[in-house]
């Protein structure tokens, strides 16, 4: 069973401080593979041209979020298929968010594909490029030890 360390147990001087500051962090693959959708089998022809090779980026494990989100700048950089826009109201007024087709994979542990909202992480100065929500976490084991700065993630 693959176990991924998502904390900072080796960081000096204080792993606990590092985990408190950065939060549980894991490298994920983000891309778009048309063959994951539907029953058409491996992507060939026009479908293959639409495929977006996955790149690896840091993700924050966000148990406060139901859905996973992708950084808007990353989504545009990857040229993910844009399929909708959502107008949502927040504390600073209404904003429009793009919605993309994509997949997010924690290698060897979890894969989610479907629609993801583009959110402003990089533009807001955040290190992480993806927020991993509970939908992606529903089939995994997550153990958070704030005292040692360690977070274990396993399938």
């Amino acid at each position, binding site marked *: 069973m693959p176990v991924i360390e998502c904390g900072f147990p080796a960081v000096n001087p204080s792993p606990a401080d590092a985990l408190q500051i950065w939060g549980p962090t894991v490298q994920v693959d983000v891309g778009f593979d048309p063959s994951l959708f539907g029953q*058409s089998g491996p992507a060939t022809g026009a479908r293959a041209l639409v495929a977006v090779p996955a790149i690896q980026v840091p993700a924050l494990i966000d148990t406060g979020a*139901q859905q996973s989100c992708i950084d808007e700048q990353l989504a545009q950089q990857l040229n993910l298929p844009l399929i909708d*826009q959502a107008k949502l109201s927040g504390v600073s007024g209404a904003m429009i968010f793009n919605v993309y087709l994509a997949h997010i994979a924690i290698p060897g542990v979890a894969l989610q594909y*479907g629609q993801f909202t583009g959110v402003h*992480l990089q533009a807001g100065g955040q290190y992480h490029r993806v927020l991993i929500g509970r939908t992606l976490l529903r089939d995994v084991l997550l153990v958070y030890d704030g005292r040692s700065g360690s977070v274990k993630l396993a399938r």
Partner: protein
Amino acid sequence: MALETEIRAYEAQREELERHYKGKFVIFRGEEFIGAFDSLDAAADEAVRRFGRGPYLIRQVGVPVEPVPASLICFGAF
């Protein structure tokens, strides 16, 4: 605005879509209604097969938009 034509077309037909296709995933390409599908997978597969990277709108009829994670408010990004 991206998808402006598609979203306007969806809104113009929203009542009828909700009457006939509530819960299904519909595709709009320009002003044209392409079809309704039982799942996002099926709609995405069809949209990509026919129109590649787009533009096209895929939306689940009559389902409210998912809220943005509360952590984004803490980040100051929203």
